[in-house]
């Protein structure tokens, strides 16, 4: 194992067991993040990005969810071997997470200030005074106006963006080694977004922090990521460094995504490009490649056999028959 890999996910499988059957929300996903680097995780909504992130922290709601396979190494240690209490030491401290839904992810009955201070108190054993000071500092950092005032606001009194910033402040509080940011800037306007991204980069530089950036905003990805992992229907379809992804996307899905971005120069009455069809029902996946029903270049083999992810170019992994010369071993 690479020594500078802070997180290594191997063959992760997280399934939900529902009335309708088994939902393989994350099905054999592998990626790794290097120290001080950022991995971008993109993909259509519902493809399993958040579930992957939650699996890392072992926060999958169970029942109905369950990690059924794979390993997650954090600093070389298998997290699945950690006890509950050991995980508590890691969560919020070494790995922290910014959640996607800022309203429901903040406890409605406590002030946002106390919720941020709590992290400091448990992990840094800060006293009230220190925690308060640091929280004001953090609020300032993430661009919350009037930090002292806002400390005593309740979540419902804040706008969506402010809540999101509170979440970010909370995640950054303990200078984690790994930050999982699940759509951290979707609720923010561009100026704040820029500010936050800048902030993350700075902290990353200062503390050699690694980031798992989950977003669908390719702009943000291109702005911060070093490597990008594209997911589709619970699997990784393309995985490479940021430049090749943007300059030379290989997988038809990635290409579709790229084309869907509205450009500044987009004509108003010109329709936006989109990938036809919808994400497949995870309980009833199509036979063969999961993407074939929506793929413009679908071949016969695509409908029959699921390709394996393989290196199409140097360090550029793709899961597509177009780039796989050999027939997958298990068929």
């Amino acid at each position, binding site marked *: 194992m690479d020594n500078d890999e802070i997180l290594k996910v191997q063959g992760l499988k997280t399934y*939900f067991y*529902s009335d*309708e059957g088994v939902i393989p929300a994350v099905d054999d996903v592998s990626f790794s993040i290097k120290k001080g680097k950022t991995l971008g995780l*993109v993909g*259509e*909504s*519902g493809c399993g990005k*958040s579930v992957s992130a939650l699996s890392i922290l072992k926060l999958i709601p169970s029942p109905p969810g369950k990690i059924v396979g794979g390993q997650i190494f954090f600093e070389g240690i298998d997290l699945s071997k950690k006890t509950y209490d050991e995980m508590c030491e890691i969560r919020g401290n070494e790995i922290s997470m910014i959640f996607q*839904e800022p*309203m*429901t992810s903040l406890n409605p009955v406590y002030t946002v200030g106390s919720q941020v201070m709590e992290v400091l108190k448990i992990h840094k054993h800060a006293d009230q005074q220190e925690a308060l000071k640091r929280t004001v500092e953090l609020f300032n950092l993430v661009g*919350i*106006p*009037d930090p002292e*005032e806002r400390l*005593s*606001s309740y979540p419902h*009194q*804040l*706008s*969506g*963006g*402010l809540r*999101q*910033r509170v979440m970010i402040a909370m995640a950054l509080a303990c200078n984690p080694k790994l930050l999982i940011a699940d*759509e951290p800037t*979707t*609720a*923010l*306007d*561009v*100026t*704040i*977004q*820029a*500010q936050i991204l*800048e902030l993350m980069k700075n902290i990353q530089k200062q503390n050699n922090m690694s980031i798992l950036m989950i977003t*669908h*905003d390719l*702009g*943000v990805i*291109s*702005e911060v*990521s070093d490597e990008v992992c594209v997911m589709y229907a619970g699997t990784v379809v393309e995985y490479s460094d940021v*430049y090749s992804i*943007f300059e030379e996307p290989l997988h038809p899905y990635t290409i*579709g*995504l790229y084309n*869907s*971005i*509205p450009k*500044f120069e*987009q004509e*108003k009455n010109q*329709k*936006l490009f*989109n990938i036809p069809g*919808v*994400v497949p029902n995870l*309980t009833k996946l199509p036979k063969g490649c999961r993407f074939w029903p929506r793929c413009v270049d679908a071949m016969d083999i695509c409908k029959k056999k699921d390709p394996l992810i393989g290196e199409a170019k140097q360090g550029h992994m793709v899961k597509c028959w177009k780039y796989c010369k050999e027939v997958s071993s298990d068929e």
Partner: protein
Amino acid sequence: MNSNEVLVETVDLKKHFIVGGEGLFSKKKKAVHAVDGINLKVAKGETLGLVGESGCGKSTLGRLILRLLEPTSGKVLFKGQNIYDMNGEELRKLRKKMQIIFQDPYASLNPRMPVSEIIGEPLETHEVAFGKEKEKMVYELMREVGLRSYHMKRYPHQFSGGQRQRIGIARALALNPELIICDEPVSALDVSIQAQVLNLLKDLQQQFQLTYIFISHDLRIVKYVSDKVYVMFLGKIVEAGNAKDIYDEPLHPYTRFLISAVPKVNPRLRESKRVILQGDVPSPVNPPAGCRFHTRCPNAMKQCSIEEPELKDFNGHMVACHLYSR
């Protein structure tokens, strides 16, 4: 461009939230000037884009237009009628014509209702369809926003963030309203779905002469969908005009910042330093005297901290800034 009939108009709309300090008996009460005197007009069939920093009062404005909040003062005229004068039943009827897509999709979905019920509810409420027919309509709506029929019996918590947003969109579309307030409708969606939804909104607009108030911080999208753009800052409009004008020739310093801050979809460009706003973020509780932006404005003049600039009209391009006093 449809500049004919004015569908919605707000007149000096204000909303101040009273916030108390902690503790039961604290006297420390303050007002958050969330919306502070907004005048805007939307013509039928037009899309009004509303951009602005987060927390500047966009969602509050949206809620006020639908009378989901009672204003501190001001009027909202829908087809010339002040909705604040309406009684319960009139208002209810009106709801059929005005819809909102909420910013926070999860919180706005009843956790105890399956998705089909959530989307079907407006149909039932306004007696559009019941039973099997309703199911079918719901199914079609779900398809349109990119959800699948097997989602119908699921509950909100079983969806991913983007999927939830689509439920909200489907619900708002169900009644074919005349006006939809889209409060960040696509910001939680991935680009592909985003494109689908935007195309859908466009189609619907063309088909039914829909009017949108489109709240977003994604300037690319706002530019793509809007006919007119209003830029808000701390509860006030600082710039307004045709989308093209605003993007091509932003006047207000804040607008210029906004446009330049849009991330480029090209990793090579990321080292080219973006302009980051400096200075303290002003507070809506004690908005700075004079121009509210002056604390962060690189072009701030003496006058800016004293006198509040008025919104002035330059051939349909309005701006509130002392740089452009004439």
